[in-house]
């Protein structure tokens, strides 16, 4: 929000603001797996569940899941093994990520306040199960601005198959000024990276020189107009915005042009693969964005919920978990592991907080060949940015049904992430409709146990 007549120090609401406290991370890359990633088949080792496979999950018959009655206990569809120096357990669903386990801290006791995709997505992103609240990325750029003048502060890379449940408001600015909303970067190399970056091709046949002269002319007129209206920072800010736009026209295509990346890097991200390539591209773009000073990047690994005949477009595996998690597991494993390796190799991991989460977990009791929604427990993990690798926080009960030790919500994850950025989640607030709003509502504890 630009000051009106308040003698604003800076016309650009995204100019960088120093972190209020010492920051361990200067950027965030969040990988979001919409649909509900099953913790019991991936990160959360439940030997007791495997043991009870085939026995009734709920002998009382009283429990009701979101869409079904609980079936029998169903152990992980993938065997678990110990990995790394830390010896943490992970399933074979993620062979490449398993090799990164010493960089990763797990929160096994995550819970959501809703078993429905829409509200749970909103909660994971904004701290509220209602639509219309600012997302974490919007809050972060509101608090810290951007280190890059030439790129948006908060960039979103949606799955090329479509938007996640709830749509674009998952990265909306809510009641914060629109400038803080996530900017969608088109991951299709054939398309301009940002909507409206250039005029449509069929318009007036302008050359870059013509565009530049048009802009200069426009700015001349704008400056004359402003000169007759002294002391109005809004007019100056809008003039500055056109300068920023011109820089964005140069820098955005440069970010998405991957030709400068080495073959080794392209192979690392598996860009040529039809299934894993698109997500690999999203991850590589995230690294390039962070390299160039973008504050917050959100990557979606999956699209909306649809009962598809073949593979579901996200992790919502009601009918056939092996089929759907099998597919998406390989996608996430390849891209996320490449991202961690690459950030590490470039010395960026220390200053970049990587978060991988989902909106809720899946039930340890079977739903046919799939699993139903489980808001009672799921796992999120963090890496880099001052996170103590090889650790875990919180536990679930012996079957993975409910969080047991240290139950945690998105509030705690968000509070921890903000803390790493040097921001106290209780102090980052914005007045709206009668309430001093926070990302963490009236909750949230920094999970110190997983910090270095």
């Amino acid at each position, binding site marked *: 929000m630009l000051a009106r007549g308040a003698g*604003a120090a800076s016309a650009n609401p995204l100019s960088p603001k120093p972190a209020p406290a010492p920051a361990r991370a200067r950027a965030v890359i969040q990988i979001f797996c919409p649909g509900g990633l099953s913790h019991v088949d991936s990160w959360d080792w439940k030997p007791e569940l495997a043991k009870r496979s085939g026995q009734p999950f709920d002998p009382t018959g009283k429990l009701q899941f979101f869409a079904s009655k609980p079936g029998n206990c169903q152990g992980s569809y993938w065997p678990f093994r110990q990995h790394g120096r830390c010896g943490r357990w992970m399933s074979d669903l993620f062979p490449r990520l398993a090799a990164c386990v010493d960089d990763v801290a797990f929160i096994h006791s995550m819970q959501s306040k809703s078993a429905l*995709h829409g509200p749970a997505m909103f909660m994971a992103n904004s701290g509220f199960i209602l639509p219309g*609240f600012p997302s974490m990325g919007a809050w972060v750029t509101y608090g810290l601005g951007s280190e890059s003048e030439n790129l948006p502060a908060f960039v979103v890379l949606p799955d090329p198959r479509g938007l996640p449940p709830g749509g674009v408001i998952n990265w909306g600015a809510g009641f914060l000024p629109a400038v803080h909303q996530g900017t969608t970067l088109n991951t299709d190399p054939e398309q301009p990276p940002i909507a409206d970056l250039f005029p449509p091709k069929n318009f007036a046949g302008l050359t870059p020189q013509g565009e530049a002269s048009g802009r200069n002319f426009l700015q001349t007129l704008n400056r004359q107009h402003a000169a007759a209206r002294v*002391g109005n920072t809004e007019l100056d800010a*809008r003039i500055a915005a056109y300068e920023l736009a011109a820089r964005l026209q140069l820098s955005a295509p440069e970010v998405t042009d991957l030709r400068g990346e080495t073959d080794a890097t392209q192979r690392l991200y598996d860009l040529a693969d039809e299934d894993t390539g698109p997500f690999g591209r999203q991850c590589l773009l995230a690294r390039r964005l962070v390299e160039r000073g973008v504050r917050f990047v959100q990557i979606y690994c999956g699209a909306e919920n649809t009962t598809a005949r073949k593979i579901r477009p996200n992790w919502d595996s009601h009918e056939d978990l092996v089929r759907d998690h099998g597919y998406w597991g390989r996608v996430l494993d390849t891209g996320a592991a490449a991202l961690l390796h690459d950030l590490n190799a470039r010395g960026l991991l220390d200053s970049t907080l990587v978060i991988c989460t989902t909106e809720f977990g899946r039930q340890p009791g079977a739903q046919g060949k799939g699993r139903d929604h489980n808001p009672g427990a799921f796992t999120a993990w963090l890496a880099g940015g001052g996170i103590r690798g090889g650790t875990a926080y919180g536990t679930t009960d012996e079957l993975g049904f409910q969080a047991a030790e240290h139950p945690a919500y998105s509030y705690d994850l968000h509070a921890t992430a903000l803390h790493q950025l040097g921001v106290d989640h209780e102090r980052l607030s914005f007045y709206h409709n009668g309430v001093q709003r926070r990302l963490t509502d009236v909750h949230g504890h920094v999970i110190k146990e997983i910090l270095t």
Partner: protein
Amino acid sequence: MLKRIALSLTLAGIASAAIAAEKPTKASSTDWWSLKPLVRPAVPATANRRLPIANPVDAFICAKLAEKNLQPSPEAEPRVQIRRLYFDLLGLPPTPDEVEAFVRECSLSHSPTFPPAPARAGEQVRKRESVTPAYARLVDKLLASPHYGERWARHWLDVVHYGDTHGYDKDKPRPNAWPYRDYVIRAFNEDRPYARFIQEQVAGDILFPGTRDGVEALGFIAAGPWDFIGHAEVPETKIDGKIARHLDRDDMVANTMQTFNSLTVGCAQCHDHKFDPIPQRDYYRLHAVFAALDRADKKYFADAKLTQRFAELEHQQRTLTAKRTALETKLKTAAGKELESLDQQIEAASKAKGGLRPEYGYHSAISPAQEAAKWVQVDLGRSVVIDRVVLRPCYDDFNKIGAGFGFPVRFKVEAGDDAQLKSGVMSIADKTAADVTNPGTAPQTFKSTGATARFLRITATKLAPRQNDFIFALAELQVFDTTGSNVALKAAVTAPDSIEAAPRWRKTNLTDDIAPGADNSGELVELRAKRDALLAKATDDKTRAELAALAKDLEQVAAELKTFPKPDVVYAGTVHYGTGAFVGTGPAGGKPRVIQVLHRGDVKQPKDEVAAGAPGYLTGLPGEFALPAGHSEGERRAALAKWLSSPDNPLTWRSLVNRVWQYHFGRGLVETPNDFGRMGALPTHPELLDWLAVEFRDSGGSLKKLHKLIVTSATYRQASVAADVRRLTSQSAIGSRQSAIEQSLLTSAATLDSENRLLWRQNRRKLDAEAVRDATLFVAGKLDPKMGGPAFQDFIVEKPEHSPHYEYHLHDPDDPKSHRRSVYRFLVRSQTQPFMTTLDCADPSMQVGKRNESVSALQALALLNNGLMVTMSKHFAAKLDAGGGDLNAKVDRAFREALARAPSAEEKANLTAYARQHGLANACRVLFNLNEFAFVD
């Protein structure tokens, strides 16, 4: 840095003093400015005759300025005034002709006092201060324009968070939301008294039964988002279903109280409000007001009794059908595998054989009863000796019927020479005694025993079942004479009724020689007969009787439904008659759900039950409803509506005048329009606020009068530009001592009140997203002024069946259907329109009392490159070309159209040169991107 963050808060336009109240003291106290009764304050007397006092508004404003030794700014130039008024009242720019006419009128009536003299001559000053007739006429003209309602309805829709989709996961469209939007536009245009406007939206069906507005206004209750999955897929018995319904009511409560009373009752969901006197119990009493309602399509008629009966009948129909389906399912289960296999064979045999032509045949009107007689007849033109008659059945996949669609269960074939078939009737076939098994598409041939006749009639005496109704359909009627030629080919067809839905269904299709490929095997007949027999065997007498009774009841219901005209539909807060997980309260008689205080807002911890009531925070207006036992749900809403619209509810009147003030000045007298509680801002001019509230209330709650009062004030008509002030004062009184004093006052104003809270000048305002879009279309000559009706869509929907993808980039910005005013745009919640969102358009997921006004690089890119902007640049250029003249003349007109002024010589020369080099369309694009286009002085 913490200070940094706090600073950005202040920048966001918040009165930091109000927020500083971190520790609530006596939170429950009703001793708070906004809750105090309204008393009309005395208008301050002004000793200084030089001050521009056009009406009491100015007296209040000038009194505050005087406290700080500040002075108001001079009146803005007429060009500035007319552009400001147009955008403020209509959301559109004036045409060049309107501008010039107004400027001319002003100079006639104003001269010689404009530019204003700061002088000694009191008489001159008084003239300047009164409203000129030209300005008053302009205000009246704009307030009478239908575009006024469109502009101000949009503000209202922000506040009530209206949208055209549900939001949340799967974000389904709400195709019947728009009647509420049209109601709001109508109410503003008709200057609906504000008390009635409130009453209609909360309880119009009860307080104004039998009116269209009384029903359509209820769209208010349903305006916000709705969790489709949480309601339609999860029943109220499950925790997630409970949460969804609790939150749904919370939205209704919050929307009502924030909109009409500017208080945030939602804070009392988990505990007593920390800052304002709203105990948790009061919050749940408001829940009880809406406890019978859901958000759903409401079918309605002007007559409320009809509306209710119609809803009951539709519910009966659903219930009976569900019972019948259950019985049939039971039978099918009893018939077991054999039936399953038969059904598969029948389905295979029913498939259309050969290519299916679109001309299906004749189709009677739909009948609610099966035992109705329907006939169709051909005129052979002359008496013919008939050898045989062939009936060719239809094929239609509707309701999975397929082959034999509409073929009557009992019928007869008759011939005669009397067109009425009253005398000399010969029977060719009589199948009225027993049910006929549906023949599929196999032709049915009936030999005649030498009948000679000109007319041939098929009468169905028992119709074919379709869904919950019955029909008679036939693809082709052939009449062969003794030579074997079809004499019915192209014969004239008559029937008492026919649905006439070309090309598929029309009478002439009966003799057009087009019929589905015939399956003569008889296989289908045989299979269907087997199936009937199998089911008959599985049916015991009791079930048979039950089925017959159900069929009879269904017929009765359908017959009564058929007597109704087609109902109108609005998406509204309503007693819902549903099935499945989304039942609503209708089936149980519309009784409100039991509402209990939820400990910590947790649906798993319900405590005491509460009665419906309003909050108790007003000492002069109790929140108790005192409704009799056994009252209806509507009485609760009516009681709340009356409480909200009471003259003794000070919040209601303060809230509204503050909103109107805000839209005229860019900032309210209270800067937090949705919060008059302790977390909100304090009024900058409490006396003026109260004076306006009383004046508004006591003059019948007329918004148009309120607008007129405000926009004719000298305060509103001030210049916004410090430089303007300088120029005006220096022009009129160069070298005078007075001018020097004014100059110094001005300087002190900029220092003492840099944010202009005291209104020593008008605020310059950035056009909102709708005004930018509408003005662009208007200036380009492409704005379609059509009012009302379903929303236009500036996106293409892909994958509508599950989670619709709203693809804005696939929309053609040149599609004239989308060139209507932005208030008619289809508002998608999960995928807000990117161009509008970038321009700070309100997010329909939340109540927006005041929009943000941000400036960003992405906005610049959107205005430079968005398809709509470049398309309209081309149209603007084409319009200028069509106006003729040389490039200089075109550029001159372009300035007048876009900016309501002529260009300076230098501007004209520069833009002409630019247009010569890069084309006129690009020059138009530059104009659309100017700050001068985007801001109103």
